[in-house]
């Protein structure tokens, strides 16, 4: 409340501002953090402990079986069986017992009597079982213990999901869909936008008003007629109805209204003098567009390109309708959805799969955020 008074910067109001913002930021980022951390965890640890415990050791109960009599050696008149329950040097024993119900009976290193013999399980997982008399048992004895497993992080889940769940193919397929579906509408829209902004032709105003109207037409309106059309074309010409060309054109169609709208507003805002002086020099509209307008419009083109890239990359509905689910056509969002159905409890698969599908848009987003914001502002706040 008194932020503007010099020297009194820390007040309850300021503190509340910071605290509320911290709270919102935490709420917003924690879900993603949980996904990322989980995707790097060991899959056995992932299902028994929350990801927020990932940086502390987890405890797991287990049992080991000692060697049988044939493993005994005689040392200085005593009979000894030795071994190691935990070969991984980073895992340690926190307690152990002879019965499953007795896991915490003994501390590691503490000797326990078994009949006449003496058994000790050490912290590093090695054990030593000594007796005055020779051992005769033919099957090893079970020893129950609690093991402490240090946090382990690895890319194992990513390897599994990439090779085992055909996510690597889906990754390539997604690029195959996204890049043409981003570039084609830009070019088509840029020409149309220039015509709407600077050329005179009958019906210009109301055609553009229709474009503005089409901005909000729900995708759902287009699906059934287009699906029928694609099927008819496929049947008539004996070609597949689910093709990359089909989805590029569909995404082009759905992206065009916004592209034309954004670019027309930007191009329409360029100074009139530039265009008029070029016309006086005898340049045609085509030359003006290629030589002058396109280079000047790069920021607006970039804004739309980011929009369209993110939209196409993240789309599920259009891909479900216009592409197949075979290895050669399935996209990331679609295979992630399949995984949710088939591997719904395998969080190591889901978390790493999800992260692979969001990493590219996140990189695009963070590196080109400024253009993205500019596009958002131009697209929704005002027309000009």
């Amino acid at each position: 409340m008194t932020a503007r008074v010099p020297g009194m910067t820390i007040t309850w109001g300021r503190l509340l501002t910071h605290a509320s913002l911290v709270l919102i930021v935490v709420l917003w980022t924690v879900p993603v953090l949980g996904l990322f951390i989980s995707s790097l965890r060991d899959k056995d640890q992932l299902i028994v402990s929350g990801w927020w415990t990932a940086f502390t050791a987890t405890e797991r109960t287990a049992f080991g079986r000692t060697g049988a009599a044939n493993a005994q050696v005689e040392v200085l008149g005593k009979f000894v069986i030795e071994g190691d329950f935990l070969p991984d040097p980073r895992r340690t024993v926190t307690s152990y017992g002879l019965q499953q119900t007795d896991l915490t009976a003994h501390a590691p290193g503490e000797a326990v009597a078994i009949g006449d013999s003496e058994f000790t399980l050490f912290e590093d997982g090695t054990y030593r079982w000594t007796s005055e008399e020779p051992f005769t048992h033919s099957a090893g004895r079970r020893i129950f213990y609690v093991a402490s497993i240090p946090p382990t992080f690895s890319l194992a889940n990513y390897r599994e999901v990439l090779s085992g769940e055909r996510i690597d193919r889906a990754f390539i397929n997604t690029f195959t869909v996204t890049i043409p579906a981003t570039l084609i509408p830009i070019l088509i829209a840029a020409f149309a936008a220039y015509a709407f902004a600077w050329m005179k032709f009958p019906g210009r105003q109301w055609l553009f008003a229709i474009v503005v109207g089409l901005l909000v037409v729900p995708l759902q309106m287009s699906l059934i007629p287009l699906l029928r059309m694609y099927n008819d074309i496929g049947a008539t010409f004996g070609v597949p109805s689910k093709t990359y060309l089909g989805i590029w054109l569909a995404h082009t169609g759905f992206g065009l209204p916004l592209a034309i709208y954004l670019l027309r507003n930007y191009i329409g805002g360029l100074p009139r003098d530039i265009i008029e002086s070029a016309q006086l020099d005898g340049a045609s509209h085509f030359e003006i567009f290629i030589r002058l307008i396109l280079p000047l419009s790069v920021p607006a083109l970039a804004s739309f390109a980011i929009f369209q890239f993110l939209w196409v990359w993240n789309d599920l509905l259009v891909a479900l309708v216009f592409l197949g689910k075979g290895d050669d056509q399935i996209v990331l969002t679609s295979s992630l959805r399949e995984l949710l159905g088939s591997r719904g409890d395998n969080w190591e698969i889901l978390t790493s799969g999800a992260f692979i599908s969001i990493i590219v848009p996140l990189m695009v987003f963070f590196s080109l955020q400024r253009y993205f914001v500019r596009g958002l502002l131009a697209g929704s706040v005002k027309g000009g």
Partner: protein
Amino acid sequence: MTQQVLMALLAVVAGVGASLAYFFGSNLLLDRLAADGRKPDGSYLSREPLRNVIRPWLFVLPALVILGVYLVYPVVETARLSFFDRNGTQFVGLSNYAWAIQNPEFLEAIRNNLLWLLFVPALSTAVGLLVATLADRVAWGNIAKSLIFMPMAISFVGASVIWKFVYDFRGPDAPQIGVVNAIVVALGGEPQAWITVPFWNNFLLMIILVWIQTGFAMVILSAALRGVPEETIEAAQIDGAGEVQVFFRIVIPQIMSTILVVWTTITIVVLKVFDIVLAMTNGQWGTNVLANSMYNWMFRGGGDFGRGSVIALVIMIAVIPIMVWNIRRFQREEAMR
């Protein structure tokens, strides 16, 4: 795989090449065919007026054709199909509509869509405005905004995985690995499979969309806040208005039109919400929404295009007021140019 990468590259070149070839080719052709010439009497004939009449259409033609095929024609066709049977061959009058208003699943979808419409735009806009306001007052505001904006880049399916993990349920005796159930247990409550709890699970799904859309609202409103003239605020402060009063009486009225734009934009997103419901519940446990229902009818039992079309039309009709408002707003702005 290598083959596919090559194919993709080829496709990029071919697709962009074809577009470029059209634009260059058609303009070149126009310049040739309608080149300046000589009249029969030998005097100079400029055909520039003719070229100027034709050229705009060369520029807009591809866009108009694609818009026509992919958006305008489908709207008309969907409306027509809503009066036809499942294959779109037999005229059935209003029977698809009659089916819809008696179908409990459809009515449930309508109810849920209304809930979404009521809460998601309001919450996203409110939190977005709150963040925009708070972030302007702290030194680390830009970092905060960037982080809250981030979910905008994440797909609805990806977000669904992220939140399904947050809501995960492991059985009453197992350690909970979902944040929500872990907190519930820590507070002494009973863990639950939250997304199967009817009615309230709708809100769990809505949170996901709010999480994604708040960043959008924040960015737009943040720009609007910066446009509020400093003098108006200072004048109110001199008159003794407190910070809260200034915000609600001075700032909010000045950015009201932007708030409306944000609200309606999110409303449109909400009407089309599909991926989240499909991935989280597929409409089970009372969470169905129109877009999900429509998708199911497209393919269920070989697909019922008549019923699917009716559902799509309902979404369209809900959008029409916003469409009209947008066009009016556009025309007002054009008039002011």
